[in-house]
Structures are given as C-alpha cells and as structure tokens.
C-alpha cells in the first residue's frame, strides 16, 4: 500500500516487440532495491515509465501512489534520476550542467547546503567541472549526473546502471553516498547487471528477464533458492556413490575435477558423505547472484548469448 514504486502487469510494446511483458515491481520506502537483469531485459524502459518519460501500453504503475505519466512534473520534485547513458550539452561545462540539473530539480533552495554538498562531491569524485560537455569521457559524464543527483535532497533516487563507467575508487565514493542518502531516509532503486554491486548495496532484489519479473525478495530469501558449488579432485569409480548423495545436482567430471551443485540448506548433510570418500582439494563456493543469474538465464542459450555479448 505504501509502496514508493508499484508496477502491476506493466506492459510496453514498441511496434510488435514487447519490451515489458507483464512486469511486477514493488519498491518500499527506505529500501535499497536492486533491479537486476541482462541488457535488453527492460530495466531502462521500466525506469522511463516510472519517470513518466514513456507511457505504459498496459498494466498499472504508481509512483508515490500517483500516476507518473499525468503527474510527472509534480512527482519529479521528489526524486533524482541518473540515466544509464548520460549525455551532456556539448557547449556547457560539467559545472554548468550540474548547476542546471540541480536548479531544474529545485534542489538549490538551500544554497549553502547545496554549495557544500556540491563542493564535497566534486572533490570526492575528483571531477574537473570546467571542461565542456563534449570533451568528457563516459565516466565523467556519469559523474555529472551523480553529483547533480546527490547534491540535491530527494525522497527517491532512480539510478540506471550508475557505476558502469566509474573506476573502483569512485565506486567507493558512490557506495558512501548511497549509504548517506538511505540513512537520511531516502529510497533507492538501483538498476544493474553488476552482481557484486547489488550484493554489496541492496536490501532487496528484483530480477527481470525479457520484460517479466522472475524473482523478487531479500538477498537471504533468494539465497534459499540457490545452490552452492562443490568441487574436488576426481578419483575414478566414485561417481555413482556421489550421485547417490541426497541433495546433489548437476554432477559433472571436468578436467580432473568432480563438480556438482548442492541445495544450500542441504550442504551440511552432504559434507560428511564427502568426508567418507576422503575427497581431495575440496572447494565449496557460497551462492552468489551470479548463480541466480545463471539459473535464470543459463538454461536458455539465446539469452546466454545476449549476456556474453553485453
């Protein structure tokens, strides 16, 4: 009921292709919500609809409980947006663009607070604000949008793959800012295909594929669905006994090692069995979002191709 963003059965068609095909998405207040999916899954389209820049072909969408298409401008007072591919005005400097976006957003009312945050962010992101827009690299263009977003207060931060052009040092700055704004009570929707980023930052995750929600929940909830990867040195003749262990899946022998996956909540039962076999060089990898991804996309070669290219 109190969702910040609520999409039900959201559809978006471009001609005959359906970019969104009945998407459900709920983002509650104060959450850092990870929005995961491969390129082309419909993440940016969803954000554009939530922003009222594009109109849904079907389904319902509310932002702060209101219609983002018809009340776009009023709703935009409450949010800050960082597009996936930031473009700047060629003739304006980075500093001018930051000020312009912040002023348009109405975020400079408290001049001193704005000036202080802006100066701190420019310093932290090591950003040169006097260069003209056309001369910035992708990472620097992204910094403009991030500095403009984080130097103005907002209830909701919509971030579309915000760190894809940033180096690791700058990601630390980014994570710190996310931490700051959520402590101040803001909600964050962070779209990404970077699993590590989402794992590190987010409380809840929604995973989409081909314009549909495939999984949504807290990381702990989703980890129940994943399996740990187990591997050890292959000794011929053991295969049948391993396969018989309860909870073992996808057994393969590959370049001298036995590999299988095991349900994370059954792993404690599997290990004593392996001990009886006296296996060598045992590794158990905890489930990661990578596995979640592979489970959801790995079964479809066409989608794997998409993922590999992106």
């Amino acid at each position, binding site marked *: 009921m109190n969702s910040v963003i609520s999409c039900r059965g959201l559809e978006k068609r471009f001609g005959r292709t359906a970019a969104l095909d009945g998407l459900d998405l709920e983002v509650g207040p104060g959450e850092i919500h990870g929005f995961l999916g491969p390129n082309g899954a419909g993440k940016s389209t969803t954000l554009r609809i939530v922003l009222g820049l*594009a*109109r849904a072909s079907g389904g319902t969408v509310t932002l702060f409980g209101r219609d983002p298409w018809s009340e776009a401008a009023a709703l935009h007072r409450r949010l800050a947006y960082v*597009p996936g*591919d930031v473009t700047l005005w060629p003739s*304006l400097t980075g500093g001018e663009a930051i000020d312009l976006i912040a*002023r348009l957003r109405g975020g400079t009312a408290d001049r001193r607070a704005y000036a202080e945050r802006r100066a701190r962010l420019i310093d932290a992101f090591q950003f040169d*604000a006097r260069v003209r827009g056309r001369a910035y690299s992708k990472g620097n263009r992204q910094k403009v949008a991030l500095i403009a977003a984080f130097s103005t207060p907002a209830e909701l931060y919509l971030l579309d793959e915000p760190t894809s052009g940033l180096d690791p040092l700058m990601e630390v700055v980014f994570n710190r800012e996310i931490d700051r704004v959520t402590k101040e009570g803001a909600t964050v929707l962070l779209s990404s295909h970077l699993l590590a980023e989402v794992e590190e930052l987010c409380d809840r995750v929604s995973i989409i594929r081909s314009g549909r929600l495939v999984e949504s929940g807290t990381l702990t909830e989703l980890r129940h669905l994943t399996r740990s990867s187990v591997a050890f040195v292959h000794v011929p003749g053991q295969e049948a006994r391993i396969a018989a262990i309860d909870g073992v899946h996808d057994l393969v022998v590959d370049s001298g090692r036995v590999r299988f996956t095991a349900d994370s909540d059954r792993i404690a039962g599997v290990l004593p069995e392996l001990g009886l076999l006296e296996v060598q060089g045992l590794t158990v990898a905890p489930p990661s979002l990578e596995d979640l991804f592979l489970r959801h996309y790995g079964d479809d070669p066409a989608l794997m191709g998409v993922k590999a290219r992106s």
Partner: protein
Amino acid sequence: MSLLGVLLRQCVRRDRVQLALWIVGTAALALMATTAVTTTFGDLAEREGILRLTTVAPAILMFRGTPNGAEVGPFAFFLMCAILGVLAGLMSTFLAVRHTRGDEEAGRAELVASTPASRLLPTTATVIHGVLVNAVLGLAIAVAFLVSGLEPRGAFVAGAAIAACGVAFLSTGLVFAQLFRSSRAANAAGVAAVIAAYFVRGIGDAAGEPSDDGLHRTPLWISWLSPIGWAQRTGAFAEDDLAPLLVSLGFAAVLVALVYAFQSARDSGASVLPGLRGRDRAGPLLSGSLGLALKLSTGAVLSWAAGAAVMGALATSLTPLVDEIGSDVPEVALRLQQLAGAGASLEEALTTTFFSVIGILASACALQLIMRARQEEGHGTAETVLATPVPRQRWIAEHGAVALLGVVVVIGVAMLGAFAGARSADDSAGMSLDAAQAAVAQLPAVLVYLGLGLLLFVLVPRVMIGVAWAALTLGAFFGVFGELLGLPDWVHDLSPFAHSPVPIGDDVDWTGGIWMLAIAAVAIGVAIVAMRRRELVAAG
C-alpha cells in the same frame, strides 16, 4: 597500399549518398542556370545591358562574379562561378572535418589508429578521397555546361576551376580539423572561411576596374586572397587560362604539408589549439529550462540575424542605384515588379523582394530553433530536463517561445539594417516606412513555419528535420519564384510566402496575413496540446 585502399573504400562508402546528392545537385544548378541564361537573357544586347548595369551598381557584383564579356559562356560563368565555388568549398571542408576530427571526436579514429593504418594513413586517405570527389564534381560541372550547349574547352576549364577551389577548401578544412578540438568548431571555422572567401572576392569584383565598354572588369588585388577569386581568374569560356589554378593547388599542397606536420607532432584526439576551459558554475541564465533553451539557441539566432541585417541593409541601400539605371535596363525593372506585384515603384519592389528573402531566412531560423528541441530529444539531454519538475508541454512551449523571439530578432535586425541603408536616400523616412511594413508583412508566413515545425516535432519527431527543411525549400521556391517560372497558380498558392501581404501602393491587402496568423496560432496550440500525449522518442 592495400591498407590505404581499405581506408579509401571506407571513406567512399560512408559518403556515397551524401556526396552523390551534393555533386548531382551542384551540377544540376550549373545546368539550370546556364539554360536560364539562354532563355531569359536570350540576346546579346540584353546581357550587355545587365553587365553595363554593374558599372553603375557594382554592389550587385558581390553576389555575382567578374564580368568577362557578354557571350553566353562567360556570362554563365559570371553568374555561377562564385556560388559553385561556395558549394564545392562547403562540400570539401565538411568532408575534411568529417573524416578527421569527426572520427577522432567519436573515438573511431583511435580504433583505426590502433591497426597498422596508424595515425597518418587515414588522413592520407581523406586527402585522396577529397581530391577524387572534387575531380568528379569538376567533371560533373563540365558535363553540365557541355550539355547546356557551351563549348567544351571552356566547360572543362570551368569544371577544373571549381574542382581546384574545392581542393583548396579541402586543405583548409583539414587544417581546422588539426587546430580545433571539436568537429563543431572545425566546421564552423570551415564555413566561415568559405563565406569569407566569397565576400573577399566579392569586394574584389565590386571595387575592380571596369573596361571602357563596361563588359569586362579587372578585379581588385584582394581577389587574389580568395580560392574563389582564383577560380574566377581562369576566365572560363574566354581566356581559358588554367594557370591561376596552380595557386589553388600550391595553396592546398602547403596546407596539407602543414597538416602532416601538426598531426605527426600531436597525440591522437588532442588538438593544436587547446580546448578552452569554461565556467565552474552556471550563470543566472541557466536557472531554468527556458534559460537553457535560450542559451542553446543564441548562436543560431545571431548567425541568422547577421545574414538578415546584411539583406536588410541591401534592401534599401541598393534601391537608389537600381532606380538610377531602371530606365536604362527596363527588363530588370520589369522582373522586380513581377516579383513584387503590380502598382509598385521600383524602390518598393526591390525592398519587398529583399524582405521576402528575409522572410525565408527568418523561417529557416524558426525551424532550426524548433529542431533544437528535437536534437535535444535525440541526443538524450531532453530526458535529463524532463526527469526534473519540468512538464513536457511547458518544455516544448518554451522552445516555441524562444523560436518566436529568435524570429522577431531576425526580422527586427533586418529592419534596423534597412533603416541604416535608407539613411542616404532622398526619401529616407518613406523608404524606412516601406521597409518596416515589408518586415512586419513577413511575420505571418514565418509563424506558419514555426507552427508547422512544432506540429512536426510533436507528431512525426523521427522525420521532422528532413520534412521541415523540405517544406521550407518548396515553400520558398514556389512562393518567391513560382510566378517567374510560370508555375500554375495553385502550386504557387501552396506556399505561405505567396500569401504574405505586399505593402505596396495605397490599399494593402492584409487578409492573407491575418489568415496565416490564425493558422499559425491553431498549429501552435494543437502542437502544445498534443504534446501531453507524446512520449520521448530516442534518436533514429
């Protein structure tokens, strides 16, 4: 060598459509103009009259060339050389920048430079590509002149003159691509160079020494500073002297050597002149979306206004001269009167004619400013603005308002230019009033184009730029030249410019203007309302 071949093929492939259109268009213009010479200025005496007129009113030569005899060949070259030179120059400087700085800016050049092609070979390919393209252009122009019935030797010399002119501007464009960091700055400098070359030779022609019979003219030395001046010096269809083209080619060779010197010394992506550093903070203008629209449009408005000011000044300053010789050459007077409508004095006719051109300039300005909104949308920066509390409808209405302001500035500046030009006239006040009326009379047609631009933006964003320019070109052609070309009335009436009030004589009919104002208002209103339901449409 095969590496160079690959690069060269890539150049040709990328440009084939664009250059084919440019070359065919330029050659077609040469053909049409030459044909027009034989049909409209059919007999020798008429052409002699026109040429002698220039001894009295040399300012006309700014827009023509060097008089070099009244036979059809030299007369056609007199009419067309400078404008063909400008077209070849623009084509070449854009080509040069597109394949060098443009690629560097887009990052493609780095990809190519990382292969064995390295940093210099793409430039070599561009030079060869540019020279070949100009050779084809020269050939096409020679064929055009030949087809229209002129003698082969002169046609060949004329083609060679234009080609050499193009090569000179190719090298100029290449140098600018080295100097500037962005292709936008390099292109701007290239266009400025071509326009400067046009006017330098114009001054040379206007201030030159006429021969005793008034049919020839020796340009001032200053023409030797312009690649277009060198082309004119060939005296095609008369002297047929190829020697001045050695200057063009020598000039190009020196500049190309300079380009290699620059490029061998600099980093890929860097420029000889450092990019200027700008402001750290935004000024007060950039405090809202209207301020942004204004700031983005200032450059375009200034350049259209500059052109309009010159036209406005000519509209009134040329009239005394034309009036003076009006009785000598009745066909000129007749032609102007035909353009302006019946019952006009020659001054009024000339002023109105110039202001109808100013109306076209202002319409182009209006369309360009509306297209700015589309460019913002395609580029992605509109999304940044519309993701803030700026409503879609207000955003497009602001772009419309800026276009309106731009149009008023362009027409207003033209009017001021006309006032300045009228100061030396006998009846300065009367002429200024005529000019003011003629200026105001342009507004309705211009606003129709403004409304059309907005409608196209809202309804068919993907094709709006092409459609809008086509609508303006056709409207200008049908409206201003329709009657002269003997097109049927209904074709002429399709053009908004055909309905502009003609403030000449005692009873001025403003109904056309009022109707157009109403149409414009409806178009603008519909566009803004329809924007409510319009999504952002990405580039494509």
